[in-house]
């Protein structure tokens, strides 16, 4: 009995000791698991207290040191003018889409939506709501009021997607420079098209510092130019107009207008005519303004001096062409007189003395034979004869038989007056204000051209451009419009290119009217001197205070010598 008991006790003892080992090791397991859970809890709290990566809104420090919430990053860069005035920006809007699988009553819902959004036909709504697709656009870019009303319908299948709408606060102003975007925000014209990749989100092109595109435009000058040009266009019932204001030292385009224009905020149904950029894409035979280049080339090459002259007593016959003057003096004319009175006969003879080759080379040098390099894609290629004969040389000398864009002309004239440096036009703001350019004529020639241009306004065909105190110089241009098989003398392209102040030119102002009609105020005249020159004058009067140019007394000494070469027949 005792044996059995003792055996049992031993067995139990043995068993207990084995269980004790198990228990001891189980305590280890418990400790390990506790440790494991502690680590997980610690790590969870660490992550919970960490700053979220890619937080929706970050704060930034302003220049004054305050911490503010960073502005929402918009998809497309803003466009501003040279003073920072916003020309194009984005507004947040909502677009309406539908999960058509969740719509139970497409017809009823379509009727309700058509009431809220009247510009989409009821049938379109019905078709899209019953399409059975998971995602269909119903209407892009709703107004806040429309969004509110759609929300009030309480239909769960309708969803709003956040979108951005491109807004041009100045509407039509500078439309041809800025261009426009499609509904998905792709630039389709103007700067929007040219800089499309750079302006889209994520890219940080050098051209667009600080996510804004700073243009060379001054929107105030732009308004003055557009206002004056459209007033003249209305007064003369012209079919179109173009205008430019350019900084002669930097090539910056301060204002560029093409009429008729359009509102880039709403491009639906805009005519091709309105979208057409006459200032850069349109090429025109610009007439007498071209004489400036002929004179510059001839003077620079030493073919003539200001003391020479040509006989302009009778029209010039060359093969089947007859070259005659619009303002015939029918006498021997000095070189300054030929320019001032815009004599075709004199200029053509001068061009013959210059020679075809040198004329071609000169025009090529000042960029009139290639499309203008500028930051928009609507650029027209110039037209000129492939077979440049003697007669071409003569007509081209006074601006017929060659068609260039107003931008090319203004760039060329800038080079003529700024001391002879050809600076390509640009629409981008230049911080230093002066750009280097190729020397195309001698500075002394440029000085002579300035004197000649000033004389045109003081004594000749450009007197209507005389903005008192601003020492305007310029040249008129009147050309008959090319028509099938020749020229239509009833339809004119009238233009005036001016520069001011002539003692130290800062800006070139160009105005062009397409098919202006004569009116009582101009005694029925419709040439550049009567129609375009007043536009340039008014623009100069309005823009000078903005551009910081003060009127002042003119130093008559600058022009005494040249004035003596010009004889006014009426006074005699």
């Amino acid at each position, binding site marked *: 009995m005792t044996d059995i008991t003792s055996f049992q006790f031993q067995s139990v003892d043995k068993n207990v000791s084995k*269980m004790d080992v*198990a228990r001891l090791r189980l305590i280890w397991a418990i400790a390990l698991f506790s440790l494991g859970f502690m680590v*997980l*809890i610690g790590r*969870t*709290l660490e*992550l919970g207290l960490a700053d*979220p*990566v890619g937080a929706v809104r970050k704060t930034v420090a302003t220049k004054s040191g305050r911490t503010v919430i960073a502005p929402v990053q918009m998809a497309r860069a803003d466009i501003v003018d040279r003073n920072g005035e916003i020309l194009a920006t984005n507004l947040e809007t909502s677009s309406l889409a539908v999960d058509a699988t969740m719509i139970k009553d497409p017809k009823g819902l379509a009727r309700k939506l058509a009431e809220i959004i009247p510009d989409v036909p009821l049938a379109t709504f019905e078709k899209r709501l019953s399409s059975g697709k998971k995602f269909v656009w119903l209407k892009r870019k709703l107004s806040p009021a429309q969004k509110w009303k759609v929300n009030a319908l309480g239909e769960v299948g309708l969803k709003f997607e956040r979108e951005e709408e491109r807004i041009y606060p100045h509407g039509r102003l500078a439309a041809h420079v800025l261009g426009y975007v499609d509904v998905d925000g792709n630039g389709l014209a103007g700067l929007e098209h040219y800089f499309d990749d750079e302006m889209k989100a994520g890219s940080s092109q050098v051209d667009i510092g600080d996510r804004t595109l700073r243009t060379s435009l001054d929107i105030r000058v732009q308004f003055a130019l557009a206002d004056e040009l459209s007033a003249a266009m209305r007064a003369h019932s012209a079919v179109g107009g173009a205008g430019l204001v350019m900084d002669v030292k930097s090539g910056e385009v301060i204002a560029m207008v093409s009429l008729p224009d359009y509102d880039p905020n709403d491009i639906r149904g805009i005519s091709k005519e309105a979208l057409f950029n006459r200032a850069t894409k349109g090429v025109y035979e610009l007439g007498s303004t071209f004489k400036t280049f002929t004179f510059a080339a001839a003077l620079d090459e030493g073919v003539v001096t200001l003391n020479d002259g040509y006989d302009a007593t009778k029209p010039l016959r060359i093969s089947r062409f007859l070259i005659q003057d619009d303002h015939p003096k029918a006498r021997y004319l000095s070189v300054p007189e030929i320019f001032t009175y815009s004599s075709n006969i004199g200029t053509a003879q001068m061009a013959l003395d210059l020679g075809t080759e040198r004329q071609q080379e000169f025009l090529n040098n000042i960029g009139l034979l290639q499309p203008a390099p500028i930051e928009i894609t609507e650029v027209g290629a110039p037209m000129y004869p492939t077979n440049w004969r003697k007669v071409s040389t003569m007509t081209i000398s006074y601006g017929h038989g060659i068609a260039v864009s107003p931008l090319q002309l203004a760039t060329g004239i800038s080079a003529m007056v700024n001391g002879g440096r050809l600076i390509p036009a640009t629409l981008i703001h230049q911080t230093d204000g002066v750009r280097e350019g190729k020397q195309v004529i001698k500075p002394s020639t440029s000085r002579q051209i300035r004197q000649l241009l000033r004389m045109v306004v003081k004594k000749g065909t450009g007197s209507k451009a005389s903005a008192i105190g601003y020492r305007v110089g310029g040249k008129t241009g009147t050309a008959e419009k090319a028509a099938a098989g020749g020229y239509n003398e009833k339809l004119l392209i009238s233009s005036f290119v001016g520069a001011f102040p002539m003692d130290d030119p800062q800006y070139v102002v160009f105005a062009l009217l397409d098919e202006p009609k004569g009116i009582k105020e101009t005694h029925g005249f419709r040439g550049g001197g009567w129609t375009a020159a007043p536009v340039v004058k008014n623009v100069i009067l309005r823009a000078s205070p903005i551009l910081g140019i003060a009127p002042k007394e003119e130093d008559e000494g600058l022009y005494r010598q040249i004035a003596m070469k010009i004889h006014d027949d009426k006074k005699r």
Partner: protein
Amino acid sequence: MTAFGFGRTDNSLLTRWWWTVDRWMLSFVFILIVAGMWLTMTASPAVADRLDLDLMHFAKRQAMFLTLGMMVIVSISVMPVLLVRRLAVIGFVGSLVLMVATLTIGPEIKGATRWLQIGTFTLQPSEFLKPFFFVTVAWLLSVEFSDKSFPGKKVAFGLFALCAFMLVRQPDFGQTVLISAVWMAQMALAGLPMMWLIFAGTVGLFGVGLGYAFLPHVTNRIDRFINPESGDTYQTDKALQAMENGGLLGQGPGSGTVKLNLPDAHTDYIYAVIGEEFGAIACVMLLILFAGIVVRGLAHLLKEEDPFKMLAASALIMQFGLQTLINVGVNLALLPSKGMTLPFVSYGGSSMLALAINVGMILALTRRNRFINPGKDPLGWKAAE
């Protein structure tokens, strides 16, 4: 209690179950199941939408699985210990047969053959193998406690080698590591000498090394974990982003945004979704609930006198706990990516039912009369059964 109709004098099966079952464990698991249902409802619609399914597809199926799971838990937990043991042995053999079937007829999904297709339901036999295997091993080892001549450890090693081989063949490295770790713990509890433990630990590390060397997806995952630059760490990155986005208090149920880009948001990475939507504090509360089940469950076993019950229940609890630690560790980028579900919270039928069997067996094995404390009983009375 009488409201339930469980009078103490009542001697029916359910009444006896009610008075003897570990009610703490039962209520923890119940809370976990309710929370899991709720969390699946917020995490899974995004995935369902992405897969073009009904938004509540996963939530509905999960509700079905959870209901089934609860029934399994209760029906297994009323079983007497002997029946549990027999169930385990039969289940173990059955699972092994199914695993062989998997290797031959199972479809290959994402480079592995782990599943059997039954209607719309894909069955993963290795999930069921785990609890049955541990209980079977516990039985073999516990026989040694009373009958020293029985070669329990040797047989257990044989079974382990067989299972590990089958798992590596699938290949399922994660499950192999899990089953090895728990089996080792069982061997340790059963009194394996220290020298052997150290040796086995070395072999285990060597095994991981072998897996790294010969299983390409293991190599890949470990490489990515050690050096995230080396490859695609998309899910881990997104999980961390979700946790950080949630902060302490979360974005609110259904308001998570990172979860929309998390492919396994409803299964392996549900913890990160909880972090984003309910916040780190809620995550910690969930972890405490898991710790309550695991640590308290193991501590409760310290008082256990029966070697089989102790070895079986502790192994089952450790399996549950390790699975939790690995899943959450992966979510928090503490461990390399691994196909391991968060018990009762992750979506998935096989793992859910297998865990229900697991928990049911734990409850069955830990039933005792709490009014008789065996440690203080001079006569050595066992808990009434």
